[in-house]
């Protein structure tokens, strides 16, 4: 059996304690062993391309994330937490994430728990009703910047990228059968990537993971980079409080992405009241600079060539801090690495730190100009 599984591997690279593979069914994984740490992280990422445009009902992936994360018997959390593991799940524009973290002593169960997530979804009307109530409560906790972010995603790309949170009324119309079909599409093998990091034997874990991923519904997914629309001079109104600007970042493998983020974070540091929002990705996506009071954007005009070196130093430092924050081994760390397998497999994430340090004054200046003249302006109506 094991020999059969090994034979299925199309691409296999073992670099010491690292194993990276793509399976014939399209699923990809990477395992990085960290001997002696005693910890483990397993991040399963289901690309949005499995269920493009949420299957026509915004928020379907989000609702599915809630349902799938419970596991087939609805006892997944309790089972995991009883042995020192825990599961967290969230939905992004790029895909839906399920992350198991905890003690490496339970690596077998951690990997096996993915099988639970890949099982065909079963859901009845009663359960769906409770979940919709929970989603309605979640809607109250959405940050003030979210309508601005939703609008930027919708307006800056072709086709527009819909709200991740979704439309509660639309979701309420979904039937259990539709959701079961949606889950099958979202979790099909062609859109799956898994990142494992921890105190494990990489080769043994690779065998287990291969077996589990082979249990996923077989399917193909069409990955296409997002087409960007022009942002210069665009003005939009948003039903929300505050004001925002949005620029497009090409992906984390491009220095200008870090330059734009560094500049926005520097502005946030210098002019409190701003928030910077970005979904770390190697695909195209917006960076949002949001002000709840609607004030402060004049600060972008304050910095000229004479004061550039000081401003650029701060922007570099902020970019570096951001990158260092991604190194904290929480769920976001695992998800960024899992999605990289699909989006930019060859890119070395360790380069991000040196890229941030090496941003030139010219790149920072250019990013500042993007925020000034190249950004889409979003005006809140409240």
């Amino acid at each position: 059996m094991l020999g059969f599984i090994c034979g299925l591997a199309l691409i296999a690279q073992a670099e010491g304690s690292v194993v990276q593979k793509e399976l014939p069914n399209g699923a990809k994984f990477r395992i990085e062993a960290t001997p002696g740490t005693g910890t483990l992280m397993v991040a399963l990422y289901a690309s949005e391309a499995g269920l493009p445009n949420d299957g026509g009902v915004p928020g379907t992936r989000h609702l599915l994330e809630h349902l799938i994360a419970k596991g087939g018997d609805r006892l997944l959390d309790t089972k995991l937490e009883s042995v020192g593991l825990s599961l967290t799940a969230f939905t992004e524009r790029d895909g839906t994430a399920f992350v198991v973290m905890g003690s490496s002593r339970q690596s077998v169960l951690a990997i096996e728990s993915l099988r639970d997530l890949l099982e065909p979804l079963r859901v009845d009307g009663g359960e769906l009703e409770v979940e919709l109530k929970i989603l309605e409560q979640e809607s109250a906790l959405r940050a003030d910047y979210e309508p601005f972010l939703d609008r930027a995603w919708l307006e800056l790309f072709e086709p527009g990228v819909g709200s991740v949170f979704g439309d509660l009324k639309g979701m309420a119309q979904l039937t259990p059968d539709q959701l079961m079909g949606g889950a099958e599409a979202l979790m099909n093998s062609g859109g799956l990537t898994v990142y494992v990091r921890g105190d494990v034997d990489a080769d043994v874990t690779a065998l287990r993971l291969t077996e589990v991923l082979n249990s996923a519904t077989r399917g193909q997914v069409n990955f296409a980079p997002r087409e960007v629309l022009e942002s210069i001079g665009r003005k939009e109104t948003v039903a929300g409080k505050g004001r925002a600007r949005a620029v497009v970042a090409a992906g984390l493998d491009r220095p200008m992405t870090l330059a734009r983020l560094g500049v926005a974070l520097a502005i946030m540091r210098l002019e409190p009241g701003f928030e910077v929002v970005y979904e770390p990705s190697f695909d195209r996506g917006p960076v949002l600079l949001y002000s709840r009071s609607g004030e402060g954007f004049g600060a972008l005009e304050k910095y000229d060539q004479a004061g550039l070196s000081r401003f650029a130093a701060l922007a570099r430092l902020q970019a570096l801090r951001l990158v260092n924050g991604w190194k904290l081994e929480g769920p976001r760390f695992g998800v960024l690495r899992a999605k990289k397998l699909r989006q930019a497999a060859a890119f070395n994430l360790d380069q991000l730190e040196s890229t941030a340090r090496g941003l030139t004054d010219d790149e920072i200046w250019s990013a500042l100009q993007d925020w000034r003249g190249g950004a889409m302006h979003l005006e809140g109506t409240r």
Partner: protein
Amino acid sequence: MISAILAIAIGQYPMKISVLELPDPGAETVAIHAYLWRDQNLTQEEDAWRVICDTIGINSTTYAADEVSFFGGTTGVLPRVVSAPDFLRLEVVSTPEKWRESVALAASLVAQPNWRSNQWEEREKVLRGSVDDPWKFALWPKRPWSSEALQVDEPSSVHSRLLDKGGLRIVVSGPIEQGLVKEELDRVTRTWAIPEYRKVSRFAEETAAPERQPYGVSTFEMTGRPIRIGENGSGAQFLAAIALGVGKGASIWQTVRERDGLAYRVEGVFWPSRSGFVPRFLMLRKSEEAELKFGGDLIAALKESASSLDVVEFSRAKVMAEQVLMHPNAFASVYVDGESPLFGLPHDDVRWRGLLNGMGLPSLPLARWSETLNEVSLDDFRSAAVEMVDRAEIRITRGYSGLD
């Protein structure tokens, strides 16, 4: 006005400094944590406390802001200040060779802020306009600012009073020789004195939690009695709080959220206070007119769960406790300041022991506390859960959308 400040100036006082040295010969860096604790949370001092927390660490009367930045440049880490309603902590990471300079810097930044040049008045204006998100607000509910602006000497006066009452507490961990830090601090601070401050009336009012919040979200909270780590019964209390509130297998998640669909965010946390770690069980709900009954639902759900906890929940609590104390965890819930929980980070043990020290408890290492929890019996765990819920206080902070 009962809470009026009695403008009685008192003379200068000597600086009181306590030092907790935690030698760790194998460590590559020295962690230096300087604490300022509050003796009371007085309404009249709330605004000043927020300004103090926001501006300490920028400079001091001994070190200019540029020197602080330069120090950060040499070690790669700028001094970091974190705060909570009851304390603030300044953290410095130093190379072993520079520990003396670093200890002096940390002590000076907390004990000798330069109020004339740290631009606190500008920061105050910014703070007045800042808004937390509903979760941050639930954790640390802040009352609206009480006046248009603070009196010019208010932050310095409150700061001096707190220093005089509680002193400066320094915790140092790393490859250091026992006794040397104390010796060094005695030498450096020999001439330091606490400036004059205004005394407060003994009738001054303790801060009451706000009754409303500026979001369309209401907070329902059950608050247990502070857990005094290491004291009798504390292990059972800690595990009971985990079983009731922490993780997706916890009672609050399984009943309030999954069974009843009452809320999206329900969570138990351990909140650091001068009296100990306070177990808090929080439910955030969309505000509505007739919402007080949901407080009753929260109580009923937790009471029902507490009385039926058994060996399955007991086992989960023990394992989960080790996870949230010692490792990175998606349900990290043991807060070591107002915004960050333990997360298996390199200096978490220093933060934990420093807090216990400030709570007047023996500075039990995290790993030992985690092991101690294995000695708790099922009976004690069950009794602690029932008692925790029975004696908990309920608080509801209603949200009024558009209040801000």
